[in-house]
């Protein structure tokens, strides 16, 4: 029984930069954590039932055939009263998560900003560049329905959006990412330690790091490596650098830069280029540019590794594709649908990673089971939020680089 219950919000690790919640603010996150699990579990199943019992038969009667694309299912399901109801609940849950997180952060912003400033001045781990423009794919809508996206400021130099992102991940993921919301980064570390136990990368680049919750575990696991975490969004970086300093991490630097232009780093500079749940937040033109830059900067024999949701393929049922697409149209993830529809292996190949050097592997969040019981998503994928991912990677061939 207890394994089905998420831990209370107060079980999260209270690192120095973590905004302090009042009793009732924590309780609101507890409600949302349970509510999100409920929406993806017991009543999420209503979507498939509505499709099979009502929507699909009606589609067949009207068109004389089955749907041929996930968008045809979406058009039909968006008219179904159950799917509308469920979507309204899920959207509201996301909005409530943002509202609660912003109340927590904004009411104590003076203290948080001052603390971040102090950490960042002393650590030397933050390097901002006001000349970096926010790409249009980050500003067209506020991603995840987070007001201000990753990049906006409530006042100059603040950390609101970074802090809000950190305090609410617990509720969004149903408590599945562990005490520091770093279950993704921990999963990457566990995978690489099994895959190449003796590997000691010297320089690691994390592109699209937001608050660094996935890059910090990598820096902790490879204390002799130099980790550079980049993002275009200064408020996220300010919070992330202060958060890392508060956790006592010293071998990471948060740098404001766009993944599309990394010319400041020479060819072959990094042994490992990492992205975590990042590729789907780009645009169709930006993704190949970033992958090409990654290929250029990667040393021969180096690793590129992307944690993502699985790509849509002919083997994936159209209904599942439609469900996985929900966030694109209801949670401001505009590139999600197009990105997951691409042949990522071909995109990687076009960027310079030969197909024979590529691999895919399944990873799931690594969390402390003493505090965070396994989420009840074994075999019950919730189409995008569960802490189970596909990783797309490649080891850059040594011979290719020598020939070039």
């Amino acid at each position, binding site marked *: *029984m207890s394994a089905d*219950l*998420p*831990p*209370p919000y*107060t*079980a999260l690790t209270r690192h120095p930069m973590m905004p302090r919640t*009042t*009793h*009732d603010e924590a*309780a*609101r996150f*507890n*409600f*949302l954590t*349970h*509510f999100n699990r*409920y929406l993806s579990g*017991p*009543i999420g*199943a*209503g979507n498939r*039932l*509505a499709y099979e*019992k*009502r929507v699909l038969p009606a589609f067949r009667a009207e068109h004389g055939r089955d749907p041929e694309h996930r968008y045809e299912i979406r058009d039909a399901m968006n008219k179904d009263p*159950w799917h*509308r*109801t469920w*979507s*309204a*609940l899920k*959207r*509201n*849950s996301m*909005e*409530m998560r*943002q*509202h*609660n997180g*912003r*109340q927590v952060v*904004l*009411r*104590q*912003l*003076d203290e948080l900003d001052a603390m971040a400033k102090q950490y960042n001045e002393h650590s030397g781990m933050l390097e901002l560049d006001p000349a970096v423009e926010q790409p249009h794919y980050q*500003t*067209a*809508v*506020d991603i995840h*329905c*987070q*007001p*201000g*996206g990753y990049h906006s400021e*409530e*006042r100059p130099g603040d950390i609101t959006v970074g802090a809000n992102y950190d305090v609410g991940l617990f509720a969004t993921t149903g408590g599945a990412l562990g005490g520091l919301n770093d279950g993704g980064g921990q999963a990457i570390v566990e995978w690489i330690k099994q895959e190449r136990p003796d590997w000691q990368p010297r320089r690691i680049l994390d592109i699209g790091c937001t608050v660094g919750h996935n890059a910090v575990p990598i820096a902790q696991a490879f204390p002799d490596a130099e980790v550079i975490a980049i993002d275009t969004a200064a408020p996220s970086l300010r919070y992330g650098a202060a958060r890392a300093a508060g956790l006592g991490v010293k071998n990471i630097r948060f740098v404001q830069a766009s993944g599309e232009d990394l010319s400041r780093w020479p060819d072959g500079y990094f042994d490992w280029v990492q992205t975590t749940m990042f590729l789907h937040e780009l645009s169709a033109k930006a993704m190949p540019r970033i992958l090409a830059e990654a290929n250029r900067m990667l040393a021969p024999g180096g690793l590129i590794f992307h944690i993502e949701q699985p790509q849509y393929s002919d083997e994936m049922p159209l209904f599942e594709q439609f469900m996985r697409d929900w966030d694109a*149209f209801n949670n*401001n993830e505009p590139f999600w649908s197009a990105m997951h529809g691409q042949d990522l292996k071909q995109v990687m190949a076009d960027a310079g990673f030969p197909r024979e050097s590529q691999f895919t592997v399944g990873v799931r969040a690594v969390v402390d089971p003493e505090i965070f019981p396994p989420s009840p998503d074994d075999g019950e994928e919730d189409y995008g939020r569960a802490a189970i991912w596909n990783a797309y990677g490649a080891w850059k061939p040594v011979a290719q680089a020598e020939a070039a």
Partner: protein
Amino acid sequence: MSEELDWVALSGRRAKGKRPEYFDDPALDRLYSTVFALAAEVSALRERQDTVERLLDAKGTIRREDIENYAPDRQAGEERGLATRAYIARIMRGFQQEVEALDAGDPPIADIVEKLSRE
């Protein structure tokens, strides 16, 4: 407290990007927003009351500070988690039973009434 910012007003800022309309009547979309925010508040109140009761059990007297600093241990966390789950199951009963009904595919009750009236 932040002195220069109206944190209450700013907290409710909308996310950029047109919000989908889920129901034909926009009033229903607004109503959902209110009902579920209220549901979260009731849940928070229940948790606060549980905190007060646990602190009184343990110490016989409490200060507000004790409430704000309270963090349940693993057992209390599970008991409260179970209570929250049961609470959500109560307020979501109509939705949950709609899913069950979808699966069951019962005929209209009038059909049963008519059928049994004849049999």
